[in-house]
């Protein structure tokens, strides 16, 4: 085992004995108002952060990780929330004893925070510069021009090009990644000693996530800021954290150095989170799941809170509350059996999946179920009643693929690549500009009226956000039964019987028929959405980011469900996601999209593990591996900048502006299709011009 410091390559600055700790949270208890009085959301939470150190707080939604960090900021909403117990000492001062104005002066100056949603975290009505400048001026009595100067300096420091011009722009003129950079610039503008980062990269593409993590790391080195990093992603933890606290149902269940937690988790929940990642299972096989769900506040078990879901639980685990106990190597765990049970390390877990795996024999039918050729969608921009359109956004610009019966094609790419537009075009939710979508050999784009409705039976869609894709006022029975009423004229009992069958099929009992969506968790709602999509017995299911809004443990449950349904019903999937590891797990073949075009398509294993297009290679390398040994030593390609605007795509190969291997020819000529012997089609000049790769993986290019 290697120790944390040598893996990290950087040693946390250790506090000298005379100086008080930077942050020490002790026995924190935060309560929120429920219908029957105050309910604890965070209980008995204690942790410390040293100067310059990064502590990760990991957990699923509802674990209390965000609430804990808001408590440190003094931002628990008054009225319906309160800190009921505990102390939060920052450099020796108990922040909970400060009055409102003193706490305000700490916020932004000594402790600051960045949030998950860069799209909504900046005020749309003011320029970026004014917002940064106001933050500086709230703590330093400087002039407007000095504030603006500081804003330019900070924007420049976080890598915003032309900072002196962009400082006067509004948030809507910034891309998601740039907004998060601007947020970081604002948060660090007063040189805080502690930065709280609440899922700062979750809403970003993996390629942008890699940029932001790099930026945070280098700024931390420069400025010596300590970071409290809240995340649900073990890969990110392995990438950036020194120590980690894992939270479950409002409590810390394990606390240890990152190296220790990955080398030997001490709490079954930590192992469970690792094991349920798609990276931890062979492609095509079922993912290991943590059964059940995080308990709601107010329905917390008496004994060990994880015990009802724990596969190592013994009867005594349920009797009395479990304390957090320190274990020999400086780790602590809230588990009665942590010394008894030998949990698997990250390396062991990941090795389960390294052998590639068999996806089972599929009958390859000569006739594809779905054949998409030359699909194009241009959205006009500008223009209005009087003026003509000034151009078009080429969201999808010539896409070809086919899907056989019972096959899964994964479609990946950054936001803006056009993958969701493809989904909508295929099922006919958007009219295509050109091209053909044929199901069972029948062209669907030209169909109208009844014949179109008939063709649509064969393909159904499941959307990303189960919270907004179900009618909040309709019962589950009505939502799932609606297509049956429309297409098969089933009503009343007959409809309900069929709905009950469908609900059974997706693992929900028929007793949920009369309930409404708000009574369900995200994972259960997504099951309902799948049941509705299956009502007409389609042969193709288009899944548009079906698991991205779900927690890790729920995500694996839904992925398993989709796998089971495919096996039982012979369904074909067009599975769209930005998370390549999920896509690799579930897909037979993968297509990678960039700026409206497919750049590489082929067998899942080949595309994900031996990419032949530099863009695929960059996507793969941007996914953080949940193993610090691997993550901190492996070669990574961080793409520079953002995806260019599809209104004005680059000439030649569209990727040439960001490609690390760009050649002259790439700037002028569209790359031709190159078929490799493993069955991949790749659109890249590397295979035909220059030092020819001739179908070999990009990784073989010497650096």
């Amino acid at each position: 085992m290697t120790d944390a410091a040598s893996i990290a390559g950087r040693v946390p600055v250790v506090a000298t004995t005379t100086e008080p700790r930077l942050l020490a949270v002790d026995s924190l208890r935060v309560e929120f108002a429920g219908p029957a009085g105050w309910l604890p959301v965070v209980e008995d939470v204690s942790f410390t952060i040293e100067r310059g150190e990064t502590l990760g707080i990991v957990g699923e939604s509802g674990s209390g990780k965000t609430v804990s960090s808001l408590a440190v900021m003094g931002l628990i909403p008054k009225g319906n929330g309160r800190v009921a117990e505990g102390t939060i000492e920052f450099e020796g001062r108990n922040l909970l004893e400060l009055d409102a104005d003193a706490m305000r002066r700490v916020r932004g100056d000594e402790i600051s925070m960045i949030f998950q949603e860069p799209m909504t975290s900046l005020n749309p009505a003011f320029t970026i510069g004014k917002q940064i400048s106001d933050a500086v001026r709230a703590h330093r009595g400087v002039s407007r021009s000095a504030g603006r100067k500081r804003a330019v300096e900070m924007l420049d420091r976080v890598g915003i090009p032309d900072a002196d011009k962009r400082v006067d722009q509004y948030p809507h003129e910034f891309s998601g990644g740039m907004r998060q950079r601007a947020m970081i610039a604002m948060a660090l503008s007063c040189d805080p000693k502690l930065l709280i980062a609440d899922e700062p990269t979750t809403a970003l593409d993996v390629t942008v996530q890699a940029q932001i993590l790099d930026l945070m790391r280098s700024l931390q080195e420069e400025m010596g800021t300590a970071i409290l990093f809240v995340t649900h992603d073990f890969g990110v933890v392995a990438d950036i954290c020194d120590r980690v606290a894992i939270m479950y149902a409002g409590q810390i269940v394990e606390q240890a150095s990152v190296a220790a937690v990955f080398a030997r988790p001490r709490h079954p929940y930590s192992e469970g989170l690792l094991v349920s990642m798609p990276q931890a299972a062979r492609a095509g096989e079922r993912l290991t799941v943590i059964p059940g769900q995080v308990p709601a506040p107010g329905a917390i078990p008496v004994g060990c809170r994880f015990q009802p879901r724990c596969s190592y639980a013994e009867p005594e685990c349920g009797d009395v509350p479990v304390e957090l106990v320190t274990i020999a190597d400086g780790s602590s765990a809230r588990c009665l059996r942590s010394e008894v049970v030998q949990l698997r390390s990250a390396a062991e877990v990941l090795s389960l999946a390294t052998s590639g795996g068999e996806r089972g024999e599929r009958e390859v039918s000569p006739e594809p179920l779905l054949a998409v050729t030359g699909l194009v969608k241009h959205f006009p921009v500008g223009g209005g009643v009087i003026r003509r359109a000034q151009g078009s956004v080429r969201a999808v610009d010539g896409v070809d693929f086919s899907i056989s019966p019972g096959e899964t094609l994964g479609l990946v790419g950054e936001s803006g690549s056009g993958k969701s537009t493809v989904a909508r075009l295929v099922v006919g939710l958007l009219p295509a500009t050109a091209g053909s979508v044929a199901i069972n050999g029948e062209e669907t784009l030209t169909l109208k009226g009844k014949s179109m409705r008939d063709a649509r039976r064969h393909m159904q869609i499941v959307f990303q956000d189960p919270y907004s894709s179900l009618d909040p006022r309709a019962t589950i029975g009505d939502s799932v039964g609606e297509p049956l009423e429309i297409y098969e004229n089933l009503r009343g009992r007959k409809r309900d019987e069929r709905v009950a069958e469908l609900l059974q099929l997706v693992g929900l009992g028929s007793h949920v028929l009369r309930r409404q969506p708000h009574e369900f968790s995200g994972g259960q709602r997504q099951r309902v959405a799948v049941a509705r999509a299956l009502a007409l017995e389609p042969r193709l299911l288009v899944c548009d980011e079906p698991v991205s809004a779900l927690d890790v443990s729920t995500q694996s449950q839904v992925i398993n469900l989709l796998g089971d349904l495919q096996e039982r019903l012979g369904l074909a999937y067009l599975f769209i996601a930005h998370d390549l590891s999920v896509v690799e797990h579930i897909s037979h073949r993968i297509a990678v999209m960039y700026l409206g075009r497919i750049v590489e398509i082929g067998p899942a294993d080949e595309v994900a593990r031996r990419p032949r297009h530099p863009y695929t290679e960059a996507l793969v390398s941007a996914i953080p591996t949940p193993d610090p040994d691997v993550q901190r030593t492996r070669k990574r390609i961080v793409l520079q900048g953002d995806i260019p605007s599809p209104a004005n795509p680059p000439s030649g190969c569209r990727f040439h502006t960001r490609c690390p291997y760009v050649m002259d020819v790439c700037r002028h000529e569209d790359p031709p299709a190159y078929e490799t012997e493993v069955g991949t089609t790749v659109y890249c000049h590397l295979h035909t011009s220059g030092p020819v790769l001739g179908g070999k993986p990009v990784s073989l290019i010497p650096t």
Partner: protein
Amino acid sequence: MGSFILRRVLALIPLLLLITFIVYALVLVIPGDPARTLAGGTKATPQAVQAMRLRLHLNEPIYQQYWRWLTQALQGNLGKPLFGGSQTVAEGIRTRFPVTLSLAVGAMFVALVIGVPAGIISGIRAGSWQDRSTTFGTSLGIAVPDFWLAMMLVVVFAVKTHLLPATGYVSITKDPLGWLQDMILPCLALGVAGGASIARQLRGALIDVLDQDYIRTARSMGLKNRKIIGVYALKNAATPVLTVIGLQFAYLLGGTFIIEQIFSIPGLGSYILGAIDTKDLPVIQGVVLVTAVIFVFVNLVVDISYGYLSPKVRAQ
């Protein structure tokens, strides 16, 4: 911003043309023969009918009539009233318009003075007793008809206590203090309902905005509460409120006509009511045109303010 305003102004030209056409088309909706109706109906002599026809050029095709009227209107000539007086319609409007405008602006001032603070107080303390009592007050303000409120105000402040005059109007240039005294009751009567709807809209908008992520960001950066609410939240909450203000202004212009009657104020209201009585077409056309143009202009100002408040709107 400059080009944004220019585009908005240019977009108004077709709209204004349409309005003038609709106003002129009032001629077409007069039942039967317009010349006969305007000349006094069945008892009019053929000579009188013929004279009316020639005077209003009703013998020409409609597009010619419209064109003649439009080109003259653009030069400020709205014709002469059919009945009574040597004053032209344009002059008639010119003398009465400031009266109505000062009433509408005064009422808008009352509405803002009541609505904005009330909206802010209840918006930042949603659910508190201050919020609940404000909401009760605004419900009352919207429910009470303005003419009833006007008469109650007259009873309390004029009849019982003699604090303010019950009726009458003096021009601001003649007697500023008298003008102020004359305007207080009508503006109050007219502005209270507007103030109530502004307060409600602002309350809702503020509650929404204060729940936004960017307000949390401002708090997390340690900005002062006053600045967060007064600048960061208010600028975002102002957009929907502005819509209400624009609509309120239209309502106020209509409302002045009734209030003018109650307080005997010689504004456009009494002018047009008199004209409707006698079917004095040029007067009706003139007043409707002016009112419509003002309404369009107010909405232009609202549109431009959207652009100021929301940079996204400006870019589109």
